[in-house]
Structures are given as structure tokens and as C-alpha cells.
């Protein structure tokens, strides 16, 4: 860094990233965003101003030391960059792809005040992918932590989504014996069954899970906790010293309008699970079917809706339409996803609310009846409330309607344990993410309601901190910003176990 960079001296244009062209990709499941090449990554790294008071770190839910890793990219010290990121973020290849950066780090980046912000997400992904290619892993020096009776602490993790993976990794690094229980036959949570291949290839999820296995984490699939054994049994009978619950918020909401139960009406979760986890797009070579409509209508406009729209397009629907009751400005999906969907030829009906699904006389969907909306006064969330325009009802011909209007807490853990829940059925926790049962922690969507990958991951790590405190394992805290503790580099600290005198 010879001269101090200013907004005027840096490359003015954000380095573009190669993407599959919209026409080809709309018919296959290849990843849309091809990622930066080395030269592109270096060029983009040169746009960072290394602000003395970096806003981006504050914008990041897990406070990645962003300028530090970008600087390392500039120095071509990719391994170093990887270590900076994984100091706080375990899943760079995943988060670089799916984080809503425009509302987080990139949204507050200083460069973004005058030009397009630094492409932090793409740089993160560049490093994450390199790590997978080169099989880098922060294999820490793990000293087995001993519980009072001399054995290793045993930690049970329920659910293998990002929150469970993060908690598992931290506890394994703390020398504990960690087992992850997953109800499905494959691990990964929403990363596996929800987010489709063209946004997050399965190979990336596999690679992240393999890293956890290298840390000694065991995965036990086909285990429905609550029913096969309860949370209470894990603590009282199975010898777990602490448990983390990260079961997500997968219970889909239906619209509750006439025609809800017609054949051809399904939740986005069902569509995506059939397509991603069960690989129904290969039917009849695999056994799970997914009959596809000619004209698919998706209700909702969040990330899940965008995935459902784009998956339907790729499965070969002739026409795919999005119906959303607010306007494009209020749409909760990532800007990039909406943009991609539009490029791929998906039609958007903003300010449109479905009121009834009509049948063909044989129990199948024939059309969806909607009403037009206009924006009224702002509501509690600050967004302008949509109000109906009387007499504006109209029909859209369709043979498949997909609901992507949100999810609720999964009821199984609540049904089978005495854990305290809040009034919406999510698990209640204290500040350390401990639940009403001592030693049992919870985090991710099952505590907050549907959120993001990075929030879930952050929660998993926070719970791990709470768990270590609970067990009396001294923790140096992954989120601490100072770079050395007792004169030892923080990086090393993060992976070393310091035990308290008993």
C-alpha cells in the first residue's frame, strides 16, 4: 500500500462477475454466478479504502475483519485471508453466495456512498472457494476438554443447518466430543433442502460438512429428536453435558383462502425439498415425483419465493409468475435474486393479492383469483400498508400455485419437551441463548423466526460461547477484536483450548 487510497484514486467501477447468460441458465441448474477469477479478485480488492473506522465490520452480523481480509487478498496471501474470515465466519463459501450483503457490509461500505460499494461478498466467496479447492482447514490444536468425571465433554446438536454446524464446529474446536443429529437423511438444513443448486451447489455444502467431520464432529442422520429420544433424555440419560437446538422454522404457512387444498397447490418448501433434497428433477430415474405445471404462480416475494420461481422455470414451466401484495420496493428478497429472476423471464405482478384458487372440477387448480392493491399508510414495520382496490378482481390461468409466504416454528420439540416457548411457538432463551432447561441452548430460526444463514451461524457461535461458559471451559471469544491476548496471536487463540483450574 504505497499511497493512501481515496474514492477518487480507486477503480471507479465495481469489478463485474461472470454469469451464465439468462437464456441458457433458465433451463439448467448450473450455478448462475461464476465467481471472481484471481485477477478480478485482486482488482476488486484494490477498491477497498481500508477505512480507519470500517463501517463494513459493524454491518456484518458476525463482525468479520473485512478490510484485513481484503488487504490480504491484495497481498495475494489468500490463506491469510481465509484465516481472517474463518476467525468469525465458518462458512465463507456459503455466506459469500447467500448473504444479503447489500443490507449488511456492502450496504454501509464507505465506497458505496459515492460509487458502487466494494464487492465484499464476491471476495469472500473467492476465498471460500479457494479454501475448498485446496482443502484448507483451520485444523486447530485441540486439547480434549475434560469434564469433572474425566471424560470429554459430550455435546449434542439437534439440527444440521447453519446454526447447528457453527455450534458444532466451535465446540469441537474446544475439544468436546460433538454429535449432530439430523432428521433428514442428509445434513445441511436449508442449505441442502431449500436453497437450490444454481445458487449454492451441493458440493459447497458437502465441503463444509466434510470440514466439520475433519474436526471430529459426528453426523447422525435419520434421527428425529423429540420422538426418537427427547431433549430431556439427552441430558438425563444419554450423557450429553450440553445440547444445542437449531431445528429451524420450517413449518410452512398456507394462505387460508378457498381452494387451498386443491391438487397443484403446494408450499415452496415442498417444491424445493422435492427438487433439491429428493432430486425430483431427475424423475423417473429417482423415485420422488414433481409434476410441474405449465403456468406456475408463486405467491410471495422473499428469497424462498425467488427460489421457487427460478426452480419452476428451470424445471420447464412455460410461464412463471410472481404474485405479491406489496410493491417491488417492499419486496424482502435480495435485490440480486429479483434481478436474476427478471432476467430469466419471470413475470412479476406487484400489488396483487390472491383471494381464491379455482378448481377444474376434478380437484386440480385451474386459475387463481386476485385483487389489485395500492399502497396506503405505513404500518408498524414502516412499510406502506397495501389496501385493496375494490372491484379490481381478476383471474390468472394457472395449473400450479406455490405458497412462499413464510414459515412458523416446527412443533416437534415443543410437543415433546418441557422447554419454554414464546407465544408464537419459538424457543425462549436468555441472553446467552440458554433455554429454560439448564445446559440446553437454542439458536437460529427456531429462536428468531425465519432469518438468514449468517444470523443462524452467528447464533450457533454465540450459543457455543454460552455453552463453554456453562461447562466451565474458558473461552477467549471469537468476536473479540484485539489482535493478541497474553501476547499470543488471536488467530491461534481462537483454536486453542485454555482450561480453567477446576
Amino acid at each position, binding site marked *: 500500500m504505497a499511497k493512501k487510497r481515496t474514492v477518487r484514486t480507486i477503480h471507479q467501477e465495481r469489478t463485474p462477475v461472470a454469469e451464465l447468460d439468462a437464456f441458457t441458465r433458465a433451463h439448467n441448474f448450473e450455478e448462475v454466478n461464476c465467481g471472481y477469477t484471481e485477477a478480478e479478485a485482486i482488482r476488486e480488492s484494490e477498491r477497498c479504502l481500508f477505512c480507519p473506522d470500517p463501517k463494513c465490520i459493524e454491518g456484518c452480523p458476525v463482525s468479520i475483519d473485512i478490510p484485513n481480509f481484503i488487504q490480504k487478498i491484495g497481498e495475494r496471501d489468500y490463506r491469510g485471508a481465509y484465516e481472517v474470515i474463518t476467525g468469525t465466519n465458518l462458512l465463507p463459501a456459503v455466506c459469500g453466495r447467500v448473504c444479503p450483503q447489500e443490507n449488511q457490509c456492502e450496504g454501509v461500505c464507505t465506497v458505496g456512498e459515492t460509487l458502487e460499494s466494494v464487492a465484499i461478498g464476491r471476495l469472500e466467496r473467492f476465498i471460500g472457494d479457494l479454501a475448498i479447492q485446496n482443502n484448507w482447514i483451520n485444523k486447530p490444536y485441540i486439547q480434549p476438554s475434560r469434564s469433572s468425571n474425566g471424560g470429554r465433554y459430550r455435546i449434542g446438536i439437534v439440527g444440521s443447518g447453519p446454526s447447528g454446524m457453527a455450534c458444532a464446529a466451535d465446540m469441537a474446536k474446544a475439544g468436546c466430543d460433538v454429535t449432530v443429529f439430523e432428521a433428514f437423511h442428509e445434513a445441511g438444513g436449508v442449505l441442502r433442502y431449500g436453497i437450490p443448486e444454481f445458487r449454492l451447489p451441493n458440493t459447497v455444502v458437502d465441503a463444509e460438512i466434510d470440514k466439520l467431520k475433519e474436526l471430529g464432529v459426528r453426523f447422525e442422520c435419520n434421527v428425529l429428536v423429540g420422538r426418537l429420544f427427547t431433549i430431556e433424555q439427552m441430558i438425563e440419560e444419554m450423557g450429553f453435558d450440553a445440547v444445542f437446538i437449531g431445528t429451524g422454522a*420450517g413449518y410452512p404457512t398456507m394462505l387460508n383462502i378457498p381452494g387451498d387444498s386443491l391438487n397443484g397447490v403446494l408450499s415452496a418448501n415442498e417444491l424445493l425439498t422435492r427438487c433439491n433434497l429428493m432430486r425430483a428433477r431427475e424423475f423417473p430415474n429417482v423415485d420422488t415425483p414433481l409434476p410441474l405445471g405449465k403456468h406456475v404462480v408463486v405467491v410471495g416475494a422473499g428469497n424462498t419465493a425467488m427460489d421457487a420461481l427460478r426452480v419452476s422455470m428451470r424445471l420447464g414451466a412455460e410461464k412463471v409468475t410472481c404474485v405479491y401484495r406489496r410493491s417491488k420496493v417492499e419486496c424482502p428478497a435480495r435485490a440480486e435474486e429479483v434481478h436474476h429472476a427478471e432476467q430469466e423471464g419471470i413475470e412479476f405482478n406487484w400489488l396483487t393479492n390472491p383471494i381464491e384458487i379455482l378448481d377444474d372440477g376434478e380437484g386440480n387448480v385451474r386459475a387463481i383469483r386476485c385483487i389489485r392493491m395500492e399502497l396506503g399508510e405505513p404500518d408498524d414495520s414502516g412499510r406502506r400498508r397495501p389496501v385493496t382496490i375494490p372491484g379490481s378482481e381478476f383471474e390468472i390461468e394457472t395449473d400450479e400455485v406455490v405458497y412462499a409466504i413464510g414459515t412458523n416454528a416446527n412443533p416437534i420439540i415443543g410437543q415433546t419437551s418441557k422447554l419454554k416457548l414464546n407465544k408464537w411457538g419459538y424457543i425462549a432463551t436468555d441472553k446467552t441463548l440458554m433455554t429454560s432447561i439448564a445446559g440446553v441452548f437454542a439458536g437460529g430460526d427456531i429462536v428468531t423466526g425465519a432469518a438468514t444463514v449468517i444470523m443462524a451461524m452467528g447464533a450457533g457461535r454465540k450459543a457455543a460461547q454460552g455453552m463453554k461458559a456453562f461447562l466451565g471451559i474458558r473461552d477467549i471469544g471469537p468476536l473479540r477484536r484485539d489482535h493478541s491476548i497474553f501476547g499470543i496471536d488471536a488467530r491461534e487463540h481462537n483454536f486453542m483450548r485454555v482450561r480453567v483450574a477446576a
Partner: protein
Amino acid sequence: MITSDNSAPVLTGNRPFEILRREDYSDVTYMLEVHHPQMARAAQPGQFVIVMSHSDGERIPLTIADFKREKGTITLVIQAVGKSTLEMKEMCQVGTHLYGLAGPMGIPSHVSSAKKVICVGGGLGVAPVYPQARALKEAGAYVIGILGYRTKDLIFWEDKFRAITDELIICTDDGSAGIRGFVTDGIRQALESHPDTEEVIAIGPPVMMKASAQATKPYGIKTMVSLNPIMVDGTGMCGGCRVKVGEKVKFACVDGPDFDGHEVDFDDLMIRLRRYKEEERVARERWSESCRMSTAAVGSEYATVSA
């Protein structure tokens, strides 16, 4: 109970799910006893499992027809009706393993304190009603069993039911054994001699459950049914298993599978079960071709009752 030894590995998941015993009751009905000690301990009447027979397979729901806690096994009784169940009939031999087996799923049946109950099983419902009948018997109830089969050759588990019921009525469509007629005829006959029956439990094809619920409605006797909609995950994640009960939408896998038969919208269930008819046909035909096996074995239990 479960291991409490700190150093011992947890005895769950990724275990082989080995098939220890198999019995064929007819051309279409077969029984598998699968090794899963932890599930055998946890299972309760009315619960089900999700099975994947191989990595490209479907996740199919099957009722836990019996569980042997000491032996560490659960018992599945399966009727070959389509690609997956036909294929399992060929593949699942003693010594082989299931690819995936998750459960026990669903809310266990409420074992009521009723003093007199009728347990009805039709076709593929015969096996699922067994653990409930046994639990009721153990709870001290007077249990009347009614089992419906198409014909004499398809009868199975008669002895098992004799051992745990106080009275047993067998019905066959063609009269080749027991009374000639449908289980609804059996229900009427039983209700005539036992008007003090407090509860009826009916499990079988949707038409049979619907007819059973209609048969008991005039008497105002509580009638529980176990619904079998199409499922994917079995954990409340997809909503594919939603059913209408008393005008409310319920997910059978986590809110059921047992519901009050007088509240269930059976027509809705039957329509939804036809959702994948075309794909099921394609899959079955492809599979039959590929193994050059006749599909003659495919029988329909719907013939057990009149609609």
C-alpha cells in the same frame, strides 16, 4: 435405559437398519422386522416411520405395526401398491439394510380409558391397528376386533389379534372366511350386541375409514381414524400431508396421524391422494419393464369396502 456411560458412543442414527426377519402374507403383503433398538424403545401405538430403501428412493411413510423392545426391532407390514413398495418387496430380504429409517413420527395414539372399544382394520390397516388394540387390552378394556380382507387367502395376523381381543370378527368381501361383507357390516353387527361401546378405532384405506365413521355417526360413538396422506419429510416441513379436519388445515405428520373420524374431510383426502397418479404410473411401468416383472401382483385394497 439408554446408555449413560460417558465414553460410550451414542447408539443412534447411521446404523444399518438391518432386516432381521421377513414374512410374506400374500402376493402383495409382506412383513419386515427391522433392527433399530432405540426406535423399538421409543415407539408407541399409532406412530409411523419414514423409510428410504435406497439413495434414489422416495421417503415413504409406514406405520409401526409392532415393536419388540427386548429384541430391538420394529415391524412394518407393507402392501405392494406402486413402484417403491413393489421394489421393496424384491429388495428387502433378510440381511439387507434399509437406506434410511426415521421415526417414530407422529403423535402417539391416545390410549383411552374406555371400557369397551372396537378396533377395525381393513386391508393394509390390519397391521397398524394392532398396537393400539394391544395397548387398549393392556389398559383393561374389552376389545372387539374387526378385520376386513378381500378374500381368505389374504388373511394374516388373525392369531395375533385373537390373543389380544375379547371378540374377533373377520369379514371377507367374498365370504370365503368369517362374515361375508365389508368391515362396516362387522361394525354394525358388533354395535348391535354391544351398544355400550365407547370408542371405535378404524384404520385402513380412506374409503373404509369414511364408511366406518359414517356407520358410527348415528350412534354418536367417538371414532378415531389414522390418516395416510402423501408425505415427504414427515417432520412438518413441507405441508404436503395437509388434511382438512373440522374445517381446519392440519399436517397429518405432526398434528396426527390420528384424528376424529367424524370431523375429517375424507373426500378432500381422497382427491389429494390422486395428486401423483400419473407419475406413480410412469414409475411403476418403468420399473416393471426394467425388471421384466409382471404387475399382476398389484391389488387394490379399495375393494375391501363399498364407497
